[in-house]
């Protein structure tokens, strides 16, 4: 009774192991506002789930986790719905464009190489920047109250000149509505090309380019991920039949619980502490990807559909 059969994956799994995996990734999701696909998909492949089914069932699972997580963060006042919806509209448009771009790239040949290298470089850059920036912020706060850096004004001036300025109450920022739309599109394109959910790109974009407070970023990111994953789950179920509901269900029983716990942990941490932890996680993922590229593969063949 410890094992359960997955009809779409065509394999059996240990219920407790998968439940625990869901719980662990759910905690990370609740703390940082990422979907956790970067961690879950390879873990599922490791326990014998085909890559395409691992990715699609994970998005089904994230629907549950992000529902639970969005609610938990909403109660703490950490979800900016206005910003989230604008980012989402951009994200859907960007995702659709990204799917077309990747087709063209694949036809040009060796797209996988370009994508992987870009991804590693981007994670490395974003991770290091966040790490250094939040480390400095943590240090300066200890000494004096941080002064507003003067060099930021150029970016702020440019952003201030854009039309359709509006106030985002929850985030406490005044921005053009174009900003979240354009940046959402940008993240959507990247996420579709990289074949990832985009939480890792979205969170830094919200922190640094939209100037949102870290806690609101986490909640708003989860809100956005919820809708992205609903879309992905239905699309995958419709066109590729790759969603294994039993697998998703066991995972989400763990993750919906984990995310509640994660949201409480998130509340206890300061914005900069959250940022530095997320930066470490991003750098860890970058290193793992780099190692995958550098180490001699155990088997020189792989099933189709993986990253």
């Amino acid at each position, binding site marked *: *009774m410890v*094992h*359960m*059969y997955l*009809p*779409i994956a*065509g*394999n*059996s799994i240990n219920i407790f192991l998968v439940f625990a995996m869901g719980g662990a990734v759910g905690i990370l999701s609740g703390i940082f506002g990422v979907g956790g696909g970067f961690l879950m998909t390879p873990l599922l492949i490791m326990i*014998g789930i085909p890559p395409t089914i691992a990715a699609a069932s994970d998005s*089904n*699972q994230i*629907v*549950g*986790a*992000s*529902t*639970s*997580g969005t*609610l*938990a963060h909403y*109660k*703490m006042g950490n979800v900016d719905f206005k910003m989230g919806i604008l980012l989402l509209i951009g994200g859907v448009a960007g995702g659709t464009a990204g799917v077309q771009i990747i087709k063209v790239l694949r036809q040009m040949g*060796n797209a*996988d*190489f370009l994508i*992987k290298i870009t991804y590693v470089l981007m994670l490395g850059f974003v991770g290091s920047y966040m790490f250094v920036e939040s480390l400095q912020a943590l240090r300066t706060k200890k000494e004096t109250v941080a002064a507003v850096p003067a060099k930021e004004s150029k970016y702020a001036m440019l952003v201030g000149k854009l039309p359709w300025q509006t106030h985002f109450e929850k985030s406490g920022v005044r921005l053009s509505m174009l900003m979240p739309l354009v940046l959402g599109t940008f993240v959507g394109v990247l996420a579709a090309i990289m074949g990832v959910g985009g939480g890792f790109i979205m969170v830094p974009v919200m922190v640094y380019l939209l100037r949102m407070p870290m806690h609101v970023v986490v909640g708003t990111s989860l809100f956005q991920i919820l809708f992205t994953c*609903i879309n992905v*789950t*239905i*699309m*995958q*179920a*419709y066109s590729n*039949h790759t*969603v294994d*509901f*039993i697998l*998703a*269900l066991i995972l*989400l*029983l763990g993750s*919906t*619980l984990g995310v*509640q716990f994660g949201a*409480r942990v998130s*509340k206890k941490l300061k914005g900069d502490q959250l940022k530095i932890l997320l930066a470490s996680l991003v750098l860890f993922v970058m290193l793992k990807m780099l190692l*995958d*590229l*550098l*180490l*001699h*593969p155990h*088997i*020189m*063949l*792989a*099933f*189709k559909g*993986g990253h």
Partner: protein
Amino acid sequence: MVKKKASILTVFVLLGLLWHPLPADPATSLTTKLEPNVILIGSFFNGISISVTGQVSAESEVLVILKGRTEDLTLKKKGRVLGVLWMNLGEVTFQQVPKIYLLYTSKGLDEFARSNREQWEQLGIGLESFQRKTEISPLLEEKDSLIQEFLKLKQSQGLYAANQGAVHFENIDGKLKSYEAAVRVPARIAPGEYELNVLELHAGTVVATAVEQIKVKEEGLPAILSNLAFKHGTLYGILAVLIAIGAGLLMDFFFGQSKGAH
């Protein structure tokens, strides 16, 4: 010269064996019994062991092979870029390879080969035989090593295996003995029809074969879900999403903090 004649003769004998019904000679009368021969995949299916039992003549050896339908399998091929980075480079198709191939033998494969190499190779038994008989497309220089990797991949999934010395005997009398093998079927077995072959060998020659059919099918929840997922994909997707949202709401209801409780 004598050797060559003998081998031609063996081929004829072998062809004759395949062509004609097996002789009713009691000394070679192979019997086979499977338990079970229908495998039902239910919610808690985690692979199953098929017990293969029967009788053979006292001097014989036994091979048991569980084989699935053959198919063309296309896999991604890994290679090096810029001399240091490993990634998927192109695809390769392995033509007409069985989905599953589980071999159980009463003694080491080397011993079978040693007793009559030529005939053994013609039988095409064992994982090594894939090296000779498998074709790949596109035809690549590294064909041999690719087939090796293919076998590694299949073995790592438990779908291909050669269990030597895993058919056990027990003497009945001077003429007959009973054999027994526990064929371990992995959870990865796909629904469909499978064939279990039992070969009785005497001095390196096949003297009798028995073919049994095994049916694998889903029942209960797995059957319902597969049917829904493949025939009504959109509905399945929507239901999966709704249940996930429901679970999320429920967890928040039971374990979430109430609003403004901080």
